[in-house]
């Protein structure tokens, strides 16, 4: 995090409020986008709002690097009377990640919406996208348990309709979005039930205050059940196996903008809250927490990795393959989180960061290629390399990162996870990571084989190169995967600082 310590992104008057402006900026931009007279204005507001949020995230990161923790009391009321934002290294990392992906996605949306959404609805769509972003940023910044639920719902409610809007391209988006709504709401309600149990036991909703009071309540059965409810509820939103059923349909049929943005951020924010609750609010050393992590989360994560990699191999549609791959990657991340050590947490968070970049790039490339041709199955993308070389090259770079080829970010994070697993003597985890890497080679290899080496479908339209407005954010993301594979000081520094911040509280 030393890189950020010297970063003064904004004048001090603005930096003092950067924590709240991080969330309020996109929120007000969403309202403005809903008022926008046409789609072009709405797009500019979306880009502006996302860039503003990223700027504020940089400011917050700088403050966190210098002070350790940034707190902001809403309404001027000190906790536990009021709601506070509490951003430490972990929160800063997520704020940066989410806002950066949002910038890339908003740039992409200029072209992606043209083919998929009706003109009259585009400004509503951009408004929904900004609201989703605001909700996710709020989740990473808040220090109040119920406020986390509210922002969880802010990010989710618009999302369901945004995914269903993909019905213009494929009507299967509608039942997929409905399914996501049911599962997501069940998850959020389980989460709030868990918070209710914690409130019953501690009397407060402020996370730091709760953590202090929970230290003496390890035997309280309501607290233990509360932990289970919270992790399972968030697990549904994070697509933890076996509660991931909603994800493949939702990502495969959503409009490209949503697939790009959600695959990189939505599950990640839920994982952030899991880490926050498991490590900061609850004591990771408590027996029930450790047992839950070791005997439920870790095995499920391992199962997710193997099973979903296998399922990815057998899909015929390209987006579904990527979606199942996402569930497998969530398995990797949760494996690292469940280890309970700084090394495990660092590895998991690093993989989270890298996966966000590579998945966003992959979905963006697929969306870009599908702009010109109606392509759903993998075979529809045959010969893409010949007619859309730049787009395909970015896809290739990101997929190398997914496979874990050395010199890419994906390789580095998998390596860290292996190191961490050796550190806690989880030999089964090492085996799982090794086997799944082979499986990844197979399904990614299949993707590349069809798209690079086969010739285009006879009689069909050739896949056109993406417009420059799409190539720029796409290559930004792809190059990031390579850059952070060669010089991982920023993400690794962030991940390490996050792990230290979260584990050091105890």
């Amino acid at each position: 995090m030393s890189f950020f310590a010297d970063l003064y992104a904004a004048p001090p008057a603005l930096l003092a409020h950067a924590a709240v402006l991080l969330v309020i900026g996109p929120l007000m931009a969403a309202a403005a986008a809903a008022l926008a007279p046409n789609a072009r204005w709405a797009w500019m507001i979306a880009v502006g709002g996302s860039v503003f949020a990223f700027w504020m995230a940089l400011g917050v990161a700088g403050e966190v690097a210098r002070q350790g923790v940034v707190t902001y009391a809403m309404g001027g009321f000190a906790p536990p009377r009021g709601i506070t934002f509490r951003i430490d290294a972990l929160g800063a990392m997520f704020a940066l990640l989410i806002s950066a992906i949002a910038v890339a996605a908003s740039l992409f949306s200029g072209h992606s919406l043209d083919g998929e959404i009706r003109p009259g609805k585009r400004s509503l769509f951009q408004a929904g996208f900004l609201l989703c972003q605001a909700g996710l940023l709020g989740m990473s910044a808040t220090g109040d348990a119920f406020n986390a639920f509210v922002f969880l719902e802010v990010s989710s409610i618009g999302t369901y309709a945004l995914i269903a809007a993909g019905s213009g391209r494929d009507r299967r988006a509608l039942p997929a979005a409905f399914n996501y709504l049911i599962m997501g709401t069940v998850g959020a309600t389980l989460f709030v039930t868990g918070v209710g149990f914690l409130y019953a036991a501690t009397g407060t909703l402020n996370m730091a205050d709760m953590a202090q009071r929970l230290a003496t309540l390890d035997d309280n059965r309501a607290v233990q059940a509360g932990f289970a409810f919270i992790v399972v509820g968030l697990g549904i939103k994070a697509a933890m196996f076996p509660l991931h059923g909603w994800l493949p349909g939702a990502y495969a049929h959503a409009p490209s903008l949503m697939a790009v943005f959600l695959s990189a951020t939505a599950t990640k924010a839920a994982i952030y809250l899991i880490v926050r609750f498991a490590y900061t609010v609850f004591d990771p050393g408590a027996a029930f927490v450790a047992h839950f992590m070791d005997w439920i989360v870790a095995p499920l994560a391992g199962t997710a990795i193997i099973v979903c990699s296998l399922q990815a191999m057998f899909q015929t549609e390209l987006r579904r393959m990527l979606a199942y791959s996402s569930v497998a990657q969530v398995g990797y991340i949760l494996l690292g989180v469940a280890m309970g050590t700084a090394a495990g947490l660092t590895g998991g968070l690093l993989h989270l960061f890298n996966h966000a970049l590579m998945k966003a790039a992959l979905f963006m490339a697929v969306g870009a290629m599908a702009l010109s041709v109606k392509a759903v199955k993998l075979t529809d993308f045959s010969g893409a390399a010949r007619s859309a070389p730049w787009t395909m090259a970015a896809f290739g770079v990101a997929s190398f990162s997914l496979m874990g080829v050395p010199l890419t970010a994906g390789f580095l994070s998998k390596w860290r996870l292996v190191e961490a697993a050796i550190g806690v003597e989880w030999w089964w985890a090492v085996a799982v990571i090794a086997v799944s890497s082979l499986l990844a080679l197979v399904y990614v290899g299949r993707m590349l084989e069809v798209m690079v080496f086969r010739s285009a479908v006879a009689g069909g339209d050739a896949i056109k190169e993406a417009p420059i407005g799409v190539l720029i954010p796409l290559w930004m993301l792809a190059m990031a995967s390579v850059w952070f594979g060669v010089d991982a000081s920023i993400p690794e520094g962030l991940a390490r600082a996050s792990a230290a911040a979260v584990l050091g509280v105890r």
Partner: protein
Amino acid sequence: MSGPLAMLDVGAIINGVLLVMLVVLMCAIARVRNLLTAILLMGVYSLVMAVWLTVMDAADVAFTEAVVGAGVSTVVLLGAILLTRSETAAISWKAMIAPGLAVLVVGGLLVFAAQDLPDFGDPASPANAYVGKLYLEMTGGDIGAANVVTAVLGSYRGFDTLGETTVIFAAGLGVALMLGFGERAMSDRERGRMPVNVSAGEDHVVLRVMAKLLIPLIVLYAFYVQFHGDLGPGGGFQAGVIMAVAVILHALVFGLDATMHAVRPGVARAIAALGVLVYAGVGIANIVHGGTFLNYDYLFPPGVEARLPDAAHHNWGQHFGIMAIEAGVLLTVAATMITVFYGFAGRSAEAVAVVGGDDTHGQNP
């Protein structure tokens, strides 16, 4: 039981009876296959819930549940089944196994947790003795509102309420994305494909006269609820829904066409966004005047508040701050509920005509 807990006896019995009614209603809803019956039972469920909430001293929540749960939810559900089928398919025994198991696991976990939950009515439980009590003690000095729930909602936890307003706004956006805002029905009428003023009111003089009398009273009541929120039960959410109810009543009696000319869909959408901007704008104003986000003590520019009449005894900043954000909430909630109604009603305006006796049930334009 003796002492203060003896107080609970009558209240406890009523509490028990109402909760048992809720369980019975839930079982009935589970078993019934006709969706109209299920929806009406759901409306009764919400009403019983509202009564139970009143018994539990949750006046504001009861108000909101009655208006939102029994009112808006029933309207939206009815709108949905008018556009879809109204009987569910039978469920086989096999289909019940997996959900049954999942439900048993959740239930088991809940039973496990319930053992360590505090006794009902215990004033010394951590929940009731800590932050909750703090709000009761400090509201007078910090804010000066009589209704502590409004004080907590509007000021102490005002940031949550901003999130809540945003959720409603997002729902309005979602419904508008999915169902439009009635523009398809309006264009159908303009193209002559449909009768111009399809409404229930054409042949029903009594309905029309009563509606004309009631609608202004309903709007007045909405404003009453809005402004008395800090003195008694009430506030922006309830007022916003009541305002929307007036518009819905107008549409049901005088026709969607007439209502859409009075309250244009585009205007409704714009007002919803405006409400969110007003709320967030109050927070920004607080920052600009030197405080933190949503700190109403800095609502006015420095020095202005001290010069207001009776500044020593009234916390004008908090008072006007809460009024301003409640106004924002009113705008967004009313406009969103109207947008949602337009979405469902406008999708197939013939569905609205069902009230007048046409059986065009199930057809789509």
